[in-house]
């Protein structure tokens, strides 16, 4: 009788740790988009002046962080039970403490002023730049494995979680004009891959931080790629 209740309890507990439980855990934590600008500084600005004519950021993030169950099973064999669940997490802007659109804009301007070979101006510039941040694709998988063995006088329980790596890809379109003539018109990408959180004592709330870290580093890569290309175009 006791064993039956224990099996029921395990099934119940496993259910609690499902997509909804994970979503609550990730949704309870927040972090800031931030990164270190460590590209080579262009001390001299021989390329003239540049004006950012427009900087459009589409709604690349949904409001809330969600967790979706991709696949999973629970095998109750009375004395030996095991389960495996795969989830996919989606970062929402509710988890980001700073205004993400403002961060995207300001971090690009900072990179442009740092490593760009031209001086940024607010009014008329030799060059005119239009940027549109169009999409973010993020793969943030999570895997939960576990088993329970009921012996006559003992119970063995094992569960492990692995989260990551988080692969982020931000795409943007950049158009550079000089005197109305297009010098550059193409799509750019910024990529990042974070490390994996794994083990028995993994802190799942850290996964929110990992997703925010992934997005920060992808934006860093994007900013550097655009500025490098503009430097070469001149």
């Amino acid at each position, binding site marked *: 009788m006791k064993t039956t209740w224990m099996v029921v309890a395990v099934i119940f507990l496993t259910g609690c740790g499902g997509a909804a439980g994970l979503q609550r855990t990730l949704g309870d934590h927040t*972090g*800031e988009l*931030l990164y*270190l600008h*460590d590209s*080579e*500084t262009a001390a001299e600005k021989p390329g003239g002046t540049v004006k950012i004519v427009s900087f459009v950021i589409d709604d690349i993030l949904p409001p809330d962080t969600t967790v979706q169950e991709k696949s999973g099973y629970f095998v109750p064999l009375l004395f030996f039970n095991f389960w495996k669940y795969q989830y996919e997490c989606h970062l929402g802007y509710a988890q980001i403490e*700073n205004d993400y659109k403002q961060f995207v804009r300001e971090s690009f301007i900072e990179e442009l002023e740092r490593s760009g070979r031209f001086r940024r101006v607010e009014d008329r510039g030799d060059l005119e730049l239009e940027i549109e941040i169009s999409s973010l694709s993020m793969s943030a998988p999570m895997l939960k494995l576990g088993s329970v063995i009921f012996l006559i006088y003992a119970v063995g329980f094992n569960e492990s979680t692995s989260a990551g790596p988080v692969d982020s890809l931000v795409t943007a379109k950049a158009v550079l004009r000089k005197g109305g003539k297009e010098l550059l018109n193409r799509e750019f990408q910024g990529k990042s891959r974070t490390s994996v959180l794994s083990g028995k004592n993994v802190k799942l709330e850290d996964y929110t*931080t990992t997703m925010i*870290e992934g997005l920060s580093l992808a934006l860093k890569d994007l900013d550097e790629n655009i500025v490098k290309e503009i430097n070469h175009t001149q």
Partner: protein
Amino acid sequence: MKIVWFFPVVILLASCSQPAKYVIVSDEMKALDGQHADQRYVCLTMDDARTNPGILALQTKSNVVKYGKKRRDGQDPIEDVLFHLIREDYQKAEELLDDYGDRIPEYLRLVLKADLASEGKGDPVDASRLVKMYQKAIDVKSCAINSEIINLRIRQLRYGR
């Protein structure tokens, strides 16, 4: 009786080999290797590292204690501040950093200010302010190893380590 001695010896040995929280390296290094997740690094220029060779080799807490017995304050400003940093006496390190002022080179002063602000026991400084402090430090000394060290520190700040 033997067993009574056994456990304190094991505990003592374990504490001796504990890694020091702060490790001082020279910018001659190409990359950090074998770092502990919670360990912080401070990078010295080649010249400053040559002036203070003793402080560079201190990888474990027991080494720091041994080194502390042989030294005294007032010999070299950089060595003084770094010694109190690696023995985790942040208040003393901060006092010395303020007292020495310009005798500590700017590249080091900026990074130490940021490190000490992040270790402060008062109100926690928010991550974006610390990143701005580290940004100033990297702008003054932007070698590859310093960049790796500061990026690692930012990662630790993200995860609250």
